[in-house]
């Protein structure tokens, strides 16, 4: 054991004794907070989904996909025959942004893209994962 490893182990033991920062314990309050965080992003996603401002022509995602129906997030990644390759759902969202909405695509890690995916996946909760399905 190097001096650093020994030091690290000593630190870990010290934390264990004092009871702070146990890796595998969390409380109801934690779960509530995480759920709130998630639901607030879902709400942002719903806002964007129904917004005429996401694209440039006033068309909103919800116009064709009420309650995000017929988006099938549980089937992605899948072979999107029209794109000729396997894609994650955000690439299909960008296709919609460019075409029916006549807008600009979003980066994969854009918070708006995260919110849109959170919303459509939330509307499909309970449906079993079925990647690749057509």
């Amino acid at each position, binding site marked *: 054991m190097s001096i650093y490893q020994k030091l690290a182990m000593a630190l870990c033991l010290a934390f264990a004794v004092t009871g702070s920062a146990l890796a595998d314990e969390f409380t109801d309050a934690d779960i509530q907070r995480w759920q709130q965080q998630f639901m607030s992003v879902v709400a942002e996603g719903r806002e964007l989904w129904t917004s005429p401002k996401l694209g440039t*022509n006033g068309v909103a995602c*919800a116009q064709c*996909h*009420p*309650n995000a129906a017929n988006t099938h997030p549980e089937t992605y990644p899948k072979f999107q025959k029209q794109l000729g390759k396997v894609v994650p759902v955000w690439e299909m969202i960008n296709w*919609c942004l460019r*075409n*029916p909405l006549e807008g600009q695509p979003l980066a994969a890690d854009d918070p708006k893209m995260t919110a849109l995916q959170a919303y459509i996946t939330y509307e499909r*909760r*309970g449906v079993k994962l079925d990647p690749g399905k057509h």
Partner: protein
Amino acid sequence: MNTINNSRRNFIKTAGTLAIGSTLPISLVELAFAESSQNFTFAYISDSHIQHIKDNRFVRNWDRGLIRAVAETNLLVPKPDFVMFGGDLAQLGSKAELDHGAQILSALHGNVHYVMGEHDYYLDLGEYWEKLFGPQYYSFDHKGVHFVVLNSIKTYDDWTFKRWPTAEQRMLEMAGLDNPNGSPFMVGEEQRSWLKNDLDKVDKDTPVVVFSHSPLQKIYKGWNFWTEDADQVQALLKPFKKVSVIYGHVHQIQYNQIGNISFNSVMATAWPWPYPQSYAQAEQYLPKLTVPMNRADPFFERDATGWQFINIANGNVDLNFTLYNNTSRVVRFNGKQKRPEDVVYQDEKARIVPQTHY
């Protein structure tokens, strides 16, 4: 009405040819009527959702759907007796949208009758629409059939008159199909009592065809595939031997039979909607009889949109769906089963993979 005659069969045969060769220009298809006094056709265009962007710009996609339907309807041979427009001409009920839509529809040859949709109504409660197209509900007779047009997209007075600070907001709230702030559609007491009086004068053997925007049956309340007082309207139609209800709003093929009443939906020219069962979080009551249309391919802008012509034969309606990027479909009244059926896909074994929705 007479029993089925040859002209009807010829018509259907030709319509079948049309379905198989859906790329045929319609002008090349000769629809034969040997004796046309009893059987006739009318065309039905619906749900164009003309959407104003700003200045002189409108959403191109929706414009194209309506322009195409108008052009193709004008190619029907022989000419349909009249054309119905099934509502939701506009997206947000503005003068600009209604005017632009009216201009596109003005290219139609022949008589056009109009049905009110919620997207036409909730900005000014139909005031400008009435100036362009006439009364919101009315009836007329044509070749022995009694036609009734209802405004089925009204709702509770509290919602219409007291809930929203501006007319624009009221329109926006009703325009969102899945908006929980919306309100269920209804025909309402005033029209129901008008309908009762109107029907009192009609012989019970006369075929009756009712046009509404929303289904006069209850399918899924969350998206207003629903009319709150549907049961009361159905009760008024019950004494008649042959009744058909034709509705728009749902942007998809639906059909059903409830007692003596046949129900048929018509396609939208703008965009298709998912079947309600594709929304995993809610119960819905899609008629078991309905064979769904194919799942839409979004990469074909006009897929799962279209228009239809309707053959009235022997007092029943046959719907001939003209689908732009897909095989056309025919839903015909089956006299033996006493219900509408798809002429190709009705049998479970005859169905194809893309008709499965999930």
